[in-house]
């Protein structure tokens, strides 16, 4: 609608609508209104186009060209409307292709491309230490202090110590996560508090103050302006609120996504000067002016070399790695999403191939028309424009439909994205996605429109007219169409092979033995803290009572605790095995996972006892406490010996011996993809006062949870359990991300195969349809049906073979991408690949057999008459 008339027109329509409602009823008026809107689109668009030409400030020639384009668009629009089947097929294909790609791009952009929401976030780095355990672990306090002192590349470095707290003093105690940070942290991150003040370096000497996150202030503490100066109780200790950070602010941490810390406490200085060999602090820093990640890495290398020379005991084998915060937090998920986007792009390419094939065939059908145009003096350029405008129109409308589709698709994606993917809630179709959709449509138009247009415009006048409407593709066009099909098959093979590998590797991961049961086990986190828990005795009493009470609940068959659940990481240290030479440096000796267990843990988790006995209450009180180790530790620590009764220690001076009393089966502690590590289970608390309660029960686990919760609150109402989940759900969750991308890529592969099959079918059908007469003559001369089918199918097979050969080259090229994502299998699995080749060949045979069989069924007489 012309801008100046819009208001009046809408007003008129509204007025008439009201009149019509009174006259004809609501439904009829609505129908009328809808028809009005629909019918106004055409005149309005034409009017707008006309004005564009009139107001064009170009030269006369430019205006003419513009008018010619508009005219061609009009022609193209009419031509497409005359063939609704063709147009609809193309539009749906494009809309789905562009829509899926746009939606995925929206996800990719928000999750990966968007910077970390902090000022100049490209200068923010995470610095990790690298030692005996590989890459990458946190730093030790003294190392951090030396980094601060000696570095020449960072303008600021802060150390974190993420912790969970129980927020008490509310109607319901609640577990929240927070972190200790050094005083300059907020300054370094470049964010000022919303209210009050940030933490200051002075706070490190005088703890007792806390800065709240916006979410904690708003949700738990009421969001009042008077919050400053009030106290909050954390683990039973009061802290004074001195500030509130703005919405969306968070300190980046290598172990949590942005937005998870709810409060910030000042680091206590004495914690940083403790043991140089104990590594538990991740470090975040900001690069100084004109510094890069590389210069920072070189700087850290220098410092770590110096420290290694100064403290060979603790730092002999350690180095530091510098990551940008963005790559550390989002690098992995970005790679996976990039892969999905790539797969979707491949599907779009294949779809474009199909559309191009359709357009080529259509152009062949218009050979006579084009010849006449050429004979009447149409220039080649004018004919290309005419043909291309059709493609452009299709692409534009397809793009707009795709954009609409992407809105729905992105909502669908958000619902199925695994929750471990960061920033899900912010995913949307934004301006960039819009640009992407338009770009993708324009690209597809060029791809499927330009080449056919160029080729079709090269019409052989004499031949076309002479054949009298008997239209076939000229050899060059035929070759081009075949090339499209070969390309589609090749891309299909690459995608199908990649998808098959991912599915295989997912199945391999799921199918493997983790070393424990998952059925019928419910787990929850316990984190006793507060003034009641001043010594080990208090913790022991708490856990003993919990085990006792939970064990007494009807239906519970066994109950135990463990400091870290299998598959979810842990803590480790190097040990000195008795009888081996004394260690030169603290990092020497086998690296052993340290876990504390309590109660009937092994039976609850179904971890088998292989040798010796399980833990007994006395084990914790002896001078050389008894511990249970796993088979792997037995193999590493005492190869070819009986480990029972042997001793080892984490400390050297003096050694604190632990005695092996039993050997249990291996479990995967660090995740489904990590092989079991040497591990020991101690019957007492070591390095950690928090634990996971594991309960095995018969019957409905869900119904049991409230009773377990009650039992725990009876022991101490201030220590609610958190993170309640069945073991099965936990295991399932660790696979969510992998399952997500495997499923999506498999879906794309299926779509790709389907499209490739449609492409082959279309080409061969076309071939058959154009040669009905030839085939009829052959049959009239006595060729058998089998021979004819063979003739046609051979054509399909020839295309398939070429496609597979080129596809194999593509597979070879794609191995590097696939390598990092598969587990337990090679990036090239001959059997999978062979299967993929055969599958594609079969698809090609089937797709060409259908039209061949149809051709044979046509009686020769009819076939001969068909011209």
């Amino acid at each position, binding site marked *: *609608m*012309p801008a*100046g*008339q819009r*208001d*009046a*027109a*809408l*007003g*008129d*329509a*509204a*007025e*008439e609508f*009201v009149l019509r409602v009174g006259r004809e009823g609501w439904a009829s008026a609505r129908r009328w209104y809808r*028809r*009005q809107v629909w*019918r*106004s*689109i*055409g*005149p*309005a668009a*034409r*009017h707008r186009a*006309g004005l564009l030409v009139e107001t064009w400030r170009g030269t006369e020639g430019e205006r003419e060209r513009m008018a010619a384009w508009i005219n061609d668009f009009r022609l193209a629009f009419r031509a497409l409307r005359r063939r609704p089947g063709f147009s609809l097929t193309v539009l749906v294909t494009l809309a789905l292709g562009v829509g899926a790609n746009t939606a995925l791009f929206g996800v990719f952009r928000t999750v990966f491309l968007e910077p970390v929401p902090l000022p100049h976030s490209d200068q923010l780095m995470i610095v990790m230490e690298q030692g005996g355990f590989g890459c990458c672990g946190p730093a030790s306090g003294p190392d951090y202090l030396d980094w601060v002192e000696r570095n020449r590349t960072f303008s600021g470095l802060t150390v974190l110590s993420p912790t969970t707290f129980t927020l008490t003093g509310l109607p319901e105690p609640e577990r929240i996560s927070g972190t200790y940070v050094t005083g300059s942290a907020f300054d370094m991150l470049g964010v000022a508090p919303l209210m009050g003040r940030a933490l200051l370096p002075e706070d490190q000497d005088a703890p007792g103050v806390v800065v709240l996150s916006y979410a904690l202030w708003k949700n738990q503490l009421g969001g009042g302006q008077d919050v400053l100066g009030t106290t909050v109780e954390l683990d039973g200790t009061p802290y004074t609120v001195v500030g509130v950070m703005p919405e969306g602010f968070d300190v980046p941490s290598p172990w949590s996504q942005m937005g998870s810390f709810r409060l910030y406490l000042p680091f206590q200085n004495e914690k940083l000067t403790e043991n140089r060999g104990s590594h538990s602090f991740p470090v975040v820093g900001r690069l100084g002016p004109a510094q890069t990640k590389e210069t920072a890495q070189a700087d850290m290398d220098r410092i770590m070399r110096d420290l290694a020379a100064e403290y060979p005991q603790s730092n002999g084998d350690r180095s530091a790695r510098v990551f940008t915060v963005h790559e550390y937090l989002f690098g992995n998920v970005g790679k996976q999403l990039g892969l999905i986007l790539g797969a979707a792009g491949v599907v779009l390419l294949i779809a474009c191939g199909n559309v191009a094939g359709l357009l080529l065939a259509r152009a062949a059908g218009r050979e006579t028309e084009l010849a006449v145009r050429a004979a009447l003096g149409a220039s080649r350029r004018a004919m290309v424009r005419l043909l291309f405008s059709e493609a452009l129109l299709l692409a534009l409308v397809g793009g707009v439909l795709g954009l609409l589709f992407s809105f729905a698709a992105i909502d669908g994606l958000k619902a199925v994205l695994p929750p471990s993917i960061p920033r899900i809630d912010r995913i949307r179709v934004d301006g960039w996605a819009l640009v992407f959709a338009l770009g993708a449509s324009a690209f597809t138009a060029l791809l499927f429109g330009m080449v056919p247009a160029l080729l079709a415009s090269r019409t052989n006048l004499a031949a076309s007219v002479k054949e009298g409407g008997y239209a076939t593709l000229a050899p060059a066009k035929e070759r081009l169409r075949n090339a499209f099909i070969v390309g589609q098959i090749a891309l299909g093979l690459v995608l199908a092979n990649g998808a098959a590998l991912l599915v295989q590797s997912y199945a391999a991961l799921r199918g493997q033995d983790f070393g424990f049961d998952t059925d019928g086990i419910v787990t929850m986190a316990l984190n006793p803290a507060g003034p009641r828990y001043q010594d080990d005795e208090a913790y022991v009493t708490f856990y003993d009572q919990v085990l006792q009470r939970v064990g007494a609940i009807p239906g519970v068959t066994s109950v135990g605790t463990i400091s870290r659940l299998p598959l979810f990481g842990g803590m480790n240290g190097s040990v000195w095995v008795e009888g081996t030479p004394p260690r030169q440096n603290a990092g020497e000796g086998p690296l052993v996972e340290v876990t504390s267990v309590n109660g009937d843990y092994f039976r609850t988790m179904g971890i088998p006892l292989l040798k010796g006995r399980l833990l007994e209450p006395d084990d914790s009180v002896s001078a050389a406490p008894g511990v249970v180790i796993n088979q792997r530790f037995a193999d590493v620590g005492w190869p070819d010996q009986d480990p029972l009764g042997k001793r080892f220690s984490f400390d050297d001076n003096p050694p604190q011996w632990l005695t092996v009393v039993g050997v249990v089966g291996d479990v995967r502690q660090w995740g489904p993809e990590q092989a079991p590590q040497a591990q020991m289970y101690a019957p007492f608390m070591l390095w950690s006062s928090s634990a996971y309660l594991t309960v095995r029960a018969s019957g409905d686990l869900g119904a049991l949870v409230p009773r377990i919760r009650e039992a725990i609150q009876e022991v101490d109402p201030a220590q609610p359990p958190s993170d309640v989940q069945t073991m099965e759900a936990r295991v399932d969750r660790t696979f969510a991300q992998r399952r997500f991308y495997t499923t999506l890529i498999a879906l794309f592969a299926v779509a790709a195969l389907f499209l490739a099959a449609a492409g082959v079918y279309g080409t061969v059908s076309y071939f058959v349809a154009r040669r009905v007469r030839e085939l009829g003559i052959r049959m009239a001369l006595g060729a058998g049906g089998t021979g004819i089918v063979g003739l046609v199918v051979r054509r399909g097979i020839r295309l398939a073979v070429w496609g597979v050969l080129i596809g194999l080259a593509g597979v070879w090229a794609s191995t590097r991408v696939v390598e990092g994502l598969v587990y337990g299998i090679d990036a090239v699995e001959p059997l999978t690949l062979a299967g993929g080749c055969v599958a594609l060949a079969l698809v090609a045979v089937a797709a060409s057999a259908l039209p061949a069989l149809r051709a044979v069924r046509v009686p020769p007489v009819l076939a001969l008459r068909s011209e």
Partner: protein
Amino acid sequence: MGEFEQLVMLALLRLGEDAYGMSVREEIERRTGREVSYGAVYTTLDRLERKGFVAHALGEATAERGGRAKKFFRVLPAGRDALRDTQRALTVMWEGVRL
């Protein structure tokens, strides 16, 4: 002058003081028996206005119009001349023609 432009101009002349979008649309629809869209009416009025054939004046904005003012159109002398020229040309051409 195009056919639809003539129809719109004639509707304006017939309606006189009361010529605005809705009445023009209804007048053409009622007399010719073909469904006419607001899109067609207003793009034509816009074009005629640009050519200097018609002019408009704003009327009242009522609640049932969603608070949007009516736009009353009238034919300018230049429009009358153009319409007359068209009619003359058509009449001349039609003379003696039997279909």
